[in-house]
């Protein structure tokens, strides 16, 4: 019981940390990391719910199946989000870098 509670709380805190990072930070990779941490937190609560200590009966397999499904989903979404983030970066950096490079080249010309 205490184990379940402990891990549930851990999962919940992980969820909260992920949520905070997701909203506050702007870097796309960090956002994706945050989502991953959040999902891990949720899975942890679910698995902890199903947990029964050794010798006190079977572990509920349905949450396990759910988490397995969830992990695979989260991996695929992560992959998609990463590729999308790369594409965003590739196209949006053009403008951003052009602004940045002006002072850089300017610096070179002065030196």
């Amino acid at each position, binding site marked *: 019981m205490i184990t379940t509670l402990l891990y549930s709380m851990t999962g919940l805190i992980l*969820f909260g940390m992920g*949520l905070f990072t*997701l909203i506050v930070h702007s870097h*796309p990779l960090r*956002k*994706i990391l945050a*989502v991953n941490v*959040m*999902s891990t937190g*949720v899975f942890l*609560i*679910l698995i902890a*719910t199903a947990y029964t200590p050794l010798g006190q009966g079977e572990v509920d397999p*349905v*949450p396990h199946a*759910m988490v397995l*499904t*969830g992990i695979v*989903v989260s991996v*695929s*979404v992560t992959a*998609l*989000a990463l590729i*999308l*983030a790369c*594409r*965003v970066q590739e*196209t*949006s950096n053009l403008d951003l870098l052009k602004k940045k490079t002006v002072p850089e080249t300017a610096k070179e010309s002065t030196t």
Partner: protein
Amino acid sequence: MIFLNVDNPSWMITPIIVPLTAGLLCFLFQRKTFAIALSAVLVNLLAACFLIGQLLTCGPMRYSMGGWQAPLGITLRTDGPAVLMLLMTGVTGFAITLYARGYFSFRIDDPGGTDRHQQQQRYFWPLWLLLLAGLNGLFLSNDIFNLYITLEIIGISAASLAALSGKPAARLASFRYLLSSLLGSLTFLLGIVFLYKSCGLLDLDLLRNLTENGPGVRAALALMSVGLLLKTALVPMHFWLPPAHANALAPVSAILSALVIKGSFYLLFRLWFEVFASSITTEALNVMGGLGAGAILWGAIQAMRQHRLKLMVAYSTVSQLGYLFVAFPLSRAADNAQVWSIVIFMAMAHACAKSAMFMSAGTIFLHFGHDRIQDLTGVRASLPITVLAYGIAGVTLMGLPPSGAFIAKWLLLSWALASCQWWWVLVIIAGSAMAMIYVFRVISRFIVIPEGFSSQKLEFHSRLLEWPALALALISLLLGLVAPWLLHILAKGSIDLTQILPGGLP
């Protein structure tokens, strides 16, 4: 052939399996994709009609996947709202498919076109068909975890579709959309975890029969609602919607605005008014109504301020969604079937009208190369049918009779007056008035042909670009006239609580 009987519940899986298979095949073959897609959406539409017929003859049905009964296995079920949503998806999806064909072939035939359009079309079909399968799965599913997976299918395919146009803005919007949708799903999943921890059940019907509604169930409901609200883009969680919808390809915008949002809303509504109806408090309903009112006003104000047609239409989606939520607090004045009827009318009318609008906007964009409202004078001269479709759809958005939206607004106003809640009346009327302004701001430009205006002669003219939009717009306008029939289906399809027995393993 026993499984060809009309009363066999197995028919229920057709709208899921057929688009699913067709999507896989489209991805596999990449040739004749339109033929595959068209047959799939056609079968889907027929299946929706068939399911309605089945519902009318045999009543609501349940179907256990693999023969495993409820608490463990996954069940699907048909009832009035579900089949009507299927019908909405079927009709809109069919028109969108035709339109998408016209849209892509227009762009591929364009001499200035590149390989990019071919690629877009190639990936559009599988994504769209799988999205359709996900939506149908969502409408039919009766298992909360299965609903989560259908939500994921919808979210991923919708985000991919939104990024399809390849514009940097679209990609950025799509990335935001994907993250918001992920956040929504995760919150929803956390809700499921709470629910499973409290009840140990996943089947919606069984959950409904539970009388216990402790803090766990409430928290679960709150979490799931927040997740779904994020996906439904209710103000103030709408930030991702306008850029994603406005920057996507026109058929994609139509899909996103007309169908995808309705999916999560439908689920939310089902949870609130069927599954957890007993745990809902008046305060919660009022909060939802307040957010809905905010959405109506804020979306309409933003829509009035836009300079680009597609952004305006996207903000009008934000606004129109509000009406669906204003129905929440007013539900106390009505019984369950009535609440459903208003939501169904609003959703169906909006789905048809909004997709017609996005299609028209897309056609205009294709022909004129931009969608700045300022410079769209005299579009009528070159694209009369498109403008007509836009106008009729606009009439529906304003909620004028005899559109489906009018019926919905009538019911809303009627309840608001009956329960002496004046403020909702004011909000609804203000929303309609602003809708009038933003719709007519555009239409007056379209239809006016100033003197000395030489209309552009357009070389390409695709019927597939114009007629589906008009058909959808007309459907949305005339929806009110078939209202008795829809109400009949809803009444017939409402599940009797006593019919569902708890438990029941094979």
